[in-house]
């Protein structure tokens, strides 16, 4: 009787658990993270639909409408966030700059993640001198400030967009290599990997069809946490004048150029600066939240 009752209770509990409404973790979704995610969604919309949203073209100049303040400071000429030294609309330029900066940052981060993860897999798979070589490169990369390396390469090789994106792709690869290597080293000792291995599938199939999906989530979290760093690197190089070149725009480039007009037209520099700051802040908030929630290994 008591046994029966206990089982009933247990069933009841199981029933309740199984049929609880899916909450998607919303009850643990803090307001700050929600706001950050909202801002990022807005940035994504700006980047994708820049040409539809922008009231002006990003290179449309108007000599009569130069250095107009934003509308709340009494600016005329219909410039929402004011205009720059050539009479170009700051709002439209910012939209296009968001597109460039986001594209370069995302592309760079993904290239770096693929490259680093691949090397990490190689190191864990082959051990021996391959591992020593990869780890030596990782140490070397970590020992040298990337900004200095990037400046040196751009000085020696000259600036062009492909080289710049390639540089952004190299940035941060060592983090993925290090983490991927550690994850694969422990994963390949686990039961499922040993089982797959003993069934006769080694190499490619084992590593990419079985181990990769199992180690993917910490790597994705790492990727999210690295995007702000890539954005900052891109905007820093562009700010110094060695990244994206005019007539293209990037958030860092407009900020750097606006620096000369701080006294007369602060909005040229401050608008892209605020966008960069809020974007990196939002991504770190969301990334930290993702890490705490989905990756027990990093806690």
């Amino acid at each position, binding site marked *: 009787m008591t046994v029966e009752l206990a089982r009933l209770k247990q069933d009841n509990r199981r029933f309740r658990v199984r049929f609880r409404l899916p909450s998607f973790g919303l009850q643990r979704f803090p307001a700050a993270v929600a706001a950050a995610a909202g801002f990022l969604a807005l940035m994504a919309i700006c980047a994708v639909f820049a040409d539809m949203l922008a009231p002006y073209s990003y290179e449309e100049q108007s000599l009569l409408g130069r250095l107009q303040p934003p509308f709340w400071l009494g600016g005329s000429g219909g410039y929402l966030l004011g205009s720059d030294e050539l009479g170009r609309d700051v709002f439209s330029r910012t939209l296009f700059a968001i597109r460039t900066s986001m594209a370069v940052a995302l592309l760079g981060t993904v290239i770096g993640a693929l490259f680093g993860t691949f090397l990490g897999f190689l190191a864990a798979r082959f*051990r021996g001198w391959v*591992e020593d070589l990869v*780890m*030596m*490169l990782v*140490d*070397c990369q*970590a*020992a*040298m*400030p*990337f*900004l*200095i*390396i990037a*400046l*040196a*390469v*751009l*000085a*020696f*090789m*000259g600036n062009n967009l492909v080289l710049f994106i390639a540089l952004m792709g190299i940035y941060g690869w060592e983090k993925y290599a290090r983490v991927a290597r*550690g994850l694969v*080293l*422990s994963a390949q000792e686990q039961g499922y990997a040993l089982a797959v291995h003993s069934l006769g599938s080694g190499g490619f199939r084992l590593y990419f069809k079985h181990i990769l999906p199992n180690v993917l989530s910490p790597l994705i979290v790492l990727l999210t946490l690295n995007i*702000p760093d890539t954005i*900052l690197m891109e*905007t*820093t190089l562009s*700010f*110094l*004048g*060695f990244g994206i070149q005019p007539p293209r725009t990037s958030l*860092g480039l407009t*900020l*750097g150029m606006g*620096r000369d007009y*701080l*006294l007369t037209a*602060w909005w040229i*520099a*401050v608008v892209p*600066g605020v966008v*960069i*700051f809020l974007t*990196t*802040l939002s991504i*770190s*908030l969301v990334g930290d939240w993702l890490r705490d929630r989905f990756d027990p290994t990093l806690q």
Partner: protein
Amino acid sequence: MNFGFVLMKTLRAVVTVWLVLTFVFIVLRLSGDPASRLLPDDIDPQTVAYYRAEWGLDRPLWEQYAAYFTSAAEGSFGISFRDRRPALEVILERVPATLELGLLSFAFAIVVGIPLGVVAALKRNTVFDRLAMSFAVLGYAMPYFFMGVLLILLFSLQLRWLPSSGSSTWWHLIMPVLTLGTTPAAMFARFTRSSVLEVMNKPFIRTARAKGALPWREIVFHALPNAAIPVVTVMGLRLGELIGGAVVTETVFAWPGMGRLLVGAVANRDLAVVQGIVVLIAISMVTVNLLIDLAYGWLDPRIRTARQEGRAEGRA
């Protein structure tokens, strides 16, 4: 401290410097004739011939590689075409200004960040903790260049309190130090907080408390030395970021240091100077990290043995 540990660490440092030098060698050879890249265009043929011989440009590539290392060891990186002097001389003049800015910013970060982290940990989940951690998150997301621009806008252009560029008085230091020091301060606050929180739960703190140690004694003598270890590691690891930040900060505030020299040299393609700075930074980064590693293996035997075990397991 055992000899093998020191030897291993030193060896790795040497290998890193060697790799950076090799990297510069390759990039330089890929970009064209080194003599024409590293010497001014209109310099007299004798000097060009002298450097060609010193760098061995007429000999096979592997001999060039060897000659490159000997000349780098002698500090011969070429001639800056802007100053018409050896690149090393031009660079070394700028080192004191960078050191002044860097050390003061680092000191600022420690003085602000560490107490903030300690107090946040002790007053966990209070308003103070929330404020300190908000500062940490905001400070970390703030790019150096935007921070610099905002400070100039506020203190130089609006309030007219501080000069926006130059380096002649102490007033000139305030904004660059704030710019360069805020991000590391935020980072230190965050790491100190989590480190202190972890240590405060350890049995030895309970023992100290049970033995009647005063609260401040408990914190200063028992908790902080133990909480310091991870924070010191982070300081070493983030040194590279400080150097990158210094490049930006010096550019924003026209601070006459090595970073601004580098930016100017890249813009003018003064490659001899760029090469010299890269090598110098590599050597100093590697040296500092080596010293931290050694100091720390010496301070905390647990870490040393843990590392050796880690190495035996293939650094797992």
